[in-house]
């Protein structure tokens, strides 16, 4: 496994290992995660049951965009703790890989292999695109695209 030196990654929102672990960080991630998960639960509960899990798809794509765009907020750039509360906290708890994997498995096991493949691919395609667009939004004001 290659581990080239990449100091510019320190401020990247997908990466959280740049700082020593602090109890207060864990607390804000726990509270943020609870808020995000309850939001996901409420959206899921409000949506009608369907073979294609639109609510989870929407949640994951919106959450991927929001996490990528998070450094656009000045308060996120200023405070590591606010960044932890909103990123790994709220957006981490809001989005989910486990429900996505469970839905793909259910669809395939139920004989809906085409739906499973489509749902898998659309989640990956739209989610990665949304994350990339979010990052572009956050880095728009940095002409060199470098870290802050």
């Amino acid at each position, binding site marked *: 496994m290659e*581990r080239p030196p990449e100091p510019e990654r320190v401020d990247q929102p997908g990466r959280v290992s740049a700082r020593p672990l602090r109890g207060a960080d864990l*607390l804000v991630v*726990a509270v943020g995660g*609870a808020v995000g*998960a309850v939001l996901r639960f409420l959206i899921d509960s409000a949506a009608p049951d369907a073979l294609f899990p639109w609510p989870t798809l929407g949640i994951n794509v919106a959450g*991927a965009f929001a996490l990528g765009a998070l450094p656009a907020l000045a308060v996120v750039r200023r405070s590591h703790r606010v960044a932890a509360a909103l990123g790994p906290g709220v957006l*981490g708890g809001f989005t989910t890989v486990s429900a996505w*994997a469970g839905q793909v498995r259910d669809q395939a096991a139920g004989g809906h292999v085409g739906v499973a493949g489509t749902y898998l691919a659309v989640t990956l395609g739209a989610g990665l695109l949304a994350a990339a667009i979010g990052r572009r939004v956050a880095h728009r004001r940095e002409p060199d695209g470098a870290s802050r």
Partner: protein
Amino acid sequence: MTALLVAVGAAVGAPLRYVLARLDGGFPTGMLVVNAVGSGLFGLFAALSLDEATWALLGTGLCGGFTSFSSFAVQAVERSPRDATSYVVATTVASIGACAIGWWLGIAMD
């Protein structure tokens, strides 16, 4: 009441993910393990005939809060095309594979 159980589960899962994601180096191994393990547990819990409250706590809350699609997606687009491809393929195969194995174990246990 159900929403409260979701909150409690996620309040445990999210900080656990935060700690394990610190293992991420050049390649996001920590998040890969988190998403695979969380999906495996999700499959296991889904196969057991849990009541609504227990499912809210363990499935929607704990596993849902533990795993994270947003971190996965942002980590993927932050990396070189080669690392991103490996990471996306590994996460997809490991998460869905673990979920299927978890389900199978759950059916055998239930």
